């Protein structure tokens, strides 16, 4: 049962932004945004052919500026939102906009690779004078037409109309604290009718109710230093994952904010990104500027029944190792990157495939080891 080798795809420019094409449930698709100050930036639309282990790509230009953050629409698979940096001689501003992919893989087969199509602008997400837009999120299930963004110390909500051609800022809420707090990241709780989001600023994690834009909980000093990423457990209510500059990944139950449920310290530098697997939430991916990606198996805090299932004993009589109850621990450490890995994301189509992107523009598509896969499936 040898695992297939990871597939590596190189971009010419440094890159930070990566996301799975969320509305695409059949094909393994990722979107990568480059980050280059002086050259024209691109969005690479990556298609991974699992059977042949081959990558197909579509490259679109993103003329507005370097992409810091990107998220794919959950409504329409051709839509995506980017947060980009618009620079002039003495100013650098962070803006956000919704774009449409001009073509998909199905209809570009005849297209010439050399001429890159630009992304079609759908609408800009204006935040008035609230500040630089750090990140945007689409509604997690794709049922609502709301987009949440972080602008410095504010949370901004936009409503987009059904044909998706315009977006209107519907409400915003600010964080009142001294020293100009800046929100670094956010995550949208997919439970409870999607009315809660969590944001992080400095070392705190805050929960918000977006109906009335009120703060619901605060985890002070969640990490020793800056919190870099958050992710809600997609299958288990109240469970939140966070990571930060103290090299740790922490599990929280937002009903009890005093103590983390579990702390992982597998990295030797800042942890930049952390993701629950959407299908099997015991699989946790984390990426760090020590240029490693770590895949953890945390069964004890997952939505899967913990410990032995009765019928499992009967099935696994011949395989004694497999019948052992699974324990928490690192499944694999991926060392294909040479530079800091700033983002990592699971495919929305295949539960066993994920992509990681390092600053030097290397995109690596990897799979969960087969042994582990069968352990979970059987």
């Amino acid at each position, binding site marked *: 049962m040898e695992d297939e080798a990871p597939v590596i795809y190189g971009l*010419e*420019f*440094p890159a930070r932004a990566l996301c799975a094409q969320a509305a695409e449930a059949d094909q393994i698709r990722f979107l990568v945004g480059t980050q280059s*100050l*002086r050259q024209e930036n691109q969005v690479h639309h990556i298609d991974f052919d699992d059977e042949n282990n081959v990558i197909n790509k579509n490259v679109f230009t993103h003329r507005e500026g370097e992409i810091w953050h990107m998220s794919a629409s959950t409504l329409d698979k051709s839509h995506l939102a980017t947060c980009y*940096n618009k*620079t002039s*001689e*003495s*100013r*650098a501003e962070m803006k956000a906009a919704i774009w449409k992919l001009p073509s998909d893989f199905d209809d570009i087969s005849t297209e010439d690779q050399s001429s890159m199509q630009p992304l079609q602008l759908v609408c800009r997400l204006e935040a008035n004078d609230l500040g630089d837009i750090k990140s945007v999120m689409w509604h997690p299930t794709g049922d609502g037409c709301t987009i949440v963004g972080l602008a410095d110390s504010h949370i901004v909500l936009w409503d987009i109309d059904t044909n998706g051609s315009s977006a209107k800022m519907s409400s915003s809420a600010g964080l009142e604290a001294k020293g100009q707090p800046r929100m670094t990241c956010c995550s949208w709780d997919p439970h409870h009718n999607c009315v809660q989001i969590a944001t992080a600023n400095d070392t705190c994690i805050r929960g918000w109710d977006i109906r009335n834009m009120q703060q619901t909980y605060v985890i002070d*000093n969640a*990490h*020793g*230093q*800056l919190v870099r990423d958050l992710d809600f457990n997609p299958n288990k209510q109240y469970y939140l994952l966070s990571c930060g*500059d*103290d*090299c740790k990944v922490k599990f929280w139950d937002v009903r009890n904010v005093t103590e983390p449920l579990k702390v992982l310290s597998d*990295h*030797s*530098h*800042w942890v930049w990104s952390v993701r629950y697997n959407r299908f099997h939430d015991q699989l946790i991916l984390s990426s760090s*500027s*020590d*240029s490693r990606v770590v895949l953890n198996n945390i069964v004890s805090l997952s939505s899967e029944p913990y410990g032995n299932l009765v019928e499992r004993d009967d099935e696994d009589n011949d395989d004694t190792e497999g019948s052992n109850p699974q324990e928490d621990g690192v499944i694999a450490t991926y*060392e294909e990157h*040479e*530079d*800091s890995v700033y983002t990592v994301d699971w495919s929305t189509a295949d539960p066993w495939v994920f992509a990681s992107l390092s*600053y*030097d*523009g290397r995109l690596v598509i990897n799979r969960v080891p087969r042994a582990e896969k069968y352990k979970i499936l059987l």
Partner: protein
Amino acid sequence: MSAAGGIDEDPEQRRKRHGMLKMYYGLDKDEAGGASLDPCDIDGAHFNKDMYLSKLIQEKSLTELMDKESDMLKQIRSLDSDMQTLVYENYNKFISATDTIRKMKNDFRKMEDEMDHLATNMSRITEFSGSVSQTLDDRRQQITKLAGVHSLLKKLQFLFELPARLKKCIELKAYSQAVRYYTKAQRILLQYQHMPSFQGINTDCVHIMEQLAATLKQQFHDKQSSPRQLAECVDLLLQLREPAEQLCEEFLKHLRFSARHKLDCDLEELQYQISWTKGEASPQSPERPAQAYTSTPMDVLEFIDSGCNGFLSNMCLVIASYNDMFLNKQDNEALENIAMKKLVHFVNSLMEQYFQAVKMRIQLERETGDNTILVRALDRFHRRLQAMNKLLPDTDFSRAGTDIVSSAARDRVDHYLESLKQHFADCLTDVRQNLASPRPAGKQEAALNLGELLSGVQLNTVDQVKSVLINLQVFIAPDITFAMKPYFRGAFCTTGVREGLVVAFVRHLTTVCHDFCEGGGERGAAPPALLLILSRLCSDFENSTISYLITLTEEQFDMDSRNEMTSISDLCNEVKVTAQKLLNHYVKVQGLAISQMLRKSVETRDWLNTIEPRNVRAVMKRVVEDITAIDSQVGQLYEEGVRKERSSDSSRRAHSYSASQQRRGQWAFTPSIDNSLISNIQKLFSEKIEIFSAVEFSKVSVLTGIVKISLKTFMECVRLRIFGRYGLQQIQVDTNYLQIHLWGFVSDENLVQCLLDEIVCSTVHRCLDPVLMEPSVIELICDRG
């Protein structure tokens, strides 16, 4: 008789003469034969005169022959005279012997006559005595008869008087005498029961005796009566053939009641003592007159003493009397067994309660500092129990006693462990206070501080452990009986002192240290210097202190069996891991502190619109200062460590400059080419740098760790910003400054170089207008700064 004649003679001569006599009678034939077979020996038995003569004639000259002849003549003459004297002497003796024999013959004849006379006289005396006894025989028989009648009458009189006597005895309360009288008469009365008069007496007696029995029983049931009285009662009742089993039962019941009463008193007293010791009870307690005189609470020795003297001696008395009464009769085995069982049951239940009380009391002793009194008390207790054991062989109180003793010992060990922990915590608090207190102005004094603190903690801890060990040694002093029991000693020394105290303390130390690493770090609980001290402490423990302490313990407590114990190396390993962890944590904390500073400095500046660099930024100077301070801090506790490929100090500065110049030259030539390519190629050839990795126990390694963390942070922060031309140049100046000042701290200067290059490279990348500064200008600025 020959001796009589030759007394005055020379013994030499005498032997010679005897020899000749013997020879004459042929007595010494074999002896002579053995002496000389030489035919030429004139004194020999095999003397051959012809041979002798011819030999003489052949060998000797004439004069010699003449001389020999005269000599021989002389010898012959003397031999002749000798012979004559001998014959004369023997003759005389023979004559006197004949005379003696004759005289003896005459005497014997006279004696024989007298013997005959005596025999006749004796036979006459026999005759006379026979006739006398014949005449007196009748009278004697009569007298014997009369005497018999008299005694019978006396007995009868006793019997007739018996009821009255018994009554009188009972009136006088001389119960034992009454019983003695009755038992004497009982048999006869029973035998002659068929005679009406005897029957009357018998019924009277039985009646009286029943009364007596009733009285006795009443006394028996009386709660006030003492054990001695009770014993007497039981004895009497037994003689009166009361059922023994029931008696044991009742006896024991009574005893139990009284003992429980006593025990209750003891317990009550104990409770009082306990509350007294806790300081809750007031000294005035009128309802307890017994306590009125105790102005201070009893110490444990007194308590045990009173227990021994009161309860245990009562117990012994009970057992002894019970043994006398029920057990040593040797007539009924089954009964004896039952009685024994009852006794054992009884004693066991009471002892249990007593043990309970003692346990409670001893537990009160947990907190006191003085062992000797406790040990003496325990010893006394143990001895008393052993004595008990001898009295009642079926039970094993000494085992239970030893259990109590060992649990007391364990308590002590636990207590000491607690106090050691407390002490260690105090030490740490002291250190923290010392660290937190404002230092005196002079830097030298501050520098001395850490080493002193470390040795202070170390000495303190070791001393404390030692003193505890000495305190605990009281438990195995040679004059303490229970200390000699292998059952106690083994467990106490190994699981108690070695494992429970020393090993547990070391483990505690490691957990405390671990806690510092785990929880405290993030919220800034433990000052970094403390981490450093603890780390050094742990590594010292690993190197020497642990083996010293364990060996000391083993010596002092005389342990031999080393199996099933934590080995020194295991313990050392644990401590080593802790030391490593602490040091790593120290590196992390310090690294993060500097990182934080760098991060803030990069984040808060507007790099796009900055002016042309004129100075090294203050924060860089601050970083270098801090790292220098850390260097001196670590240097106090850890030795230097190994560096990679050192070039001589004089050439170092120039060398590093040229290296950096070279690289910067590269950038200068190729500013337009995508820099990531260069950095990627560089990375291909350099090894991956572990940022937060384990460090070695050396100054250089620690510093390298801290520098690595700081520079990596610097790079990550730079990548998040956008720089203008001057922003980039400022970073160039800053990194150059760091390069100049940081190489001395790390093990591999290439590492610093590499990280700094990457920072500049990243900055170039994030720069809108990447125009690099001239290296000479950078140097100038750095030199000025």
